[in-house]
């Protein structure tokens, strides 16, 4: 907080006293968030093209509720109302992308406000969340309203199938009919933005090229998914699905590039980031194979988030020490 020393009777500040650093490269939180939202825009467009106006309704409602909730909570707790850094908008957008397009309005409102309250405000506001905020709200909604969050039951009127529940219920032969190119182009149901694999990949690569996220976490996450799925596939290819199928379905790509890289809840440092990604990726396949949840990505990333403080203890050696 820069405090200003004023001479009496002169309105302009003479000196501005603030803590270092004083030399910035021009990068700011709002710029970072804005570019992440920009990277997600093609995903939103693809989702609206595929699911129609329903997707636009969910996305818009979630974003508005997130920003309004953040403003109200910050006002109540007496902190700076810093909603103009777009971080709450991004949280709302990411949460909307995990929902089915048919989510009722009250679920979107409750979930989006919970992602702000439980995910961010209770743990100390923006930048202090120990867990990825949209995923907290997703988990609460998934536990509370199973049938409304279930992709199969809530999206009966589309021509596409939910590949992961097909795999869970009927085994890998049932999913051998899926064309990988179709899956890549988003011809599947799931979280409304998360399944637009092509758009998500494009946005993720844009963020890596612009150096807003390090490539370590996404690549390690995808490698973890791919390796674990390959191990299962090599053990018994009649019971477990192809690793490429696992990479292209559900929210694996979305989680790898946008959820696991959430800056407050992921570790810093090269080795911790790689370990973080690998743990998340391995848990995705373990949850998909053994649990009742068809898509393991949100829970896997939450588990990895819980390990972040431990992973952060792996530090680089100080210079010139043994």
């Amino acid at each position, binding site marked *: 907080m820069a405090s200003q020393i004023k001479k009496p009777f002169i309105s302009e500040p003479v000196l501005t006293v603030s803590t270092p650093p004083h030399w910035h490269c021009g990068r700011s939180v709002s710029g970072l968030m804005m570019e992440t939202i920009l990277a997600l825009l093609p995903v939103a467009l693809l989702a609206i093209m595929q699911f129609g106006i329903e997707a636009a309704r969910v996305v818009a409602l979630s974003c508005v509720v997130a920003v309004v909730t953040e403003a109200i909570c910050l006002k109540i707790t007496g902190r700076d109302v810093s909603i103009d850094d777009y971080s709450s908008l991004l949280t709302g957008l990411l949460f909307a992308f995990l929902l089915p397009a048919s989510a009722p309005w*009250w679920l979107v409102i*409750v979930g989006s406000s919970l992602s702000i309250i*439980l995910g961010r405000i209770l743990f100390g506001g923006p930048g202090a969340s120990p867990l990825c905020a949209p995923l907290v709200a997703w988990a*609460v909604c998934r*536990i*509370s*309203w*199973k049938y*409304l969050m279930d992709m199969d039951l809530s999206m009966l009127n589309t021509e596409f199938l939910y590949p992961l529940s097909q795999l869970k219920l009927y085994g890998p032969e049932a999913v051998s009919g899926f064309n990988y190119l179709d899956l890549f182009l988003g011809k599947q149901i799931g979280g409304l933005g998360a399944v637009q694999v092509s758009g998500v990949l494009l946005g993720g690569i844009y963020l890596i090229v612009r150096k807003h996220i390090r490539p370590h976490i996404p690549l390690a996450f995808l490698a973890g998914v791919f390796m674990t799925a390959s191990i299962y596939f090599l053990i018994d290819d009649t019971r477990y699905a192809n690793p490429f199928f696992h990479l292209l379905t559900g929210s694996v790509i979305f989680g790898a590039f946008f959820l696991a890289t959430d800056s407050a809840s992921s570790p810093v440092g090269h080795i911790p980031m790689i370990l973080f990604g690998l743990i998340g990726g391995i848990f995705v396949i373990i949850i998909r194979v053994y649990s009742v949840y068809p898509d393991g990505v949100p829970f896997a990333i939450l588990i990895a988030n819980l390990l972040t403080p431990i992973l952060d203890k792996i530090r680089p050696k100080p210079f010139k020490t043994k």
Partner: protein
Amino acid sequence: MNRMWKEFSKGLWLELPPFRLLLGLCPVLAVTKTAYNGFGMGCAVIFVLTLSNLIISLVRKIIPPKVRIVCFIVITASLVVTVELLMQAFTYPLYQELGIFVPLIVVNCLILGRAEAFASRNPVHLSVADALGMGFGFTLSLTFLGGIREIFGYGTFFGRPFMWAEFKPFTFMVEAPGAFICLAMCLAAMNFITTWQSKRF
């Protein structure tokens, strides 16, 4: 009489067991799925706590200090067995609902804590007043917490429909994480009220 009222009333707000002393949190988190369960658990605790405080206070001069904890546990355990048998006989559905948490009253921190901190060094009438106050405070807290969780988690209150007809139950509240979040909210509210009061006066 004045002293007795003071010992009784402190358990109702100033030293409210789960929300101020943070004692006996295991049943607070585990059995408050419904208001009825919380109320039943609270009644069992009132029974055990009052009688154990009474007995311990009566025999406090006889118990050798070195083995006092063991003696407290023996007294509490026999009372808990009594309450368990009584619940099996008269309120069997509630007994089934509470399950393992009835026998676990033996190691409830609240009961041992009151025995150690109060009953073993105070006369009988004060100990009973203290136990009744703590017990009522515990019961009210459990019923309150159970009521909140039941209203949101099932849409009912003491088994009767409470919310509007199209209400979709917020099942998260009756799961384990909901218990923690609910308790944390209650503690935050208590802290908020305390600071607000201290500012006002």
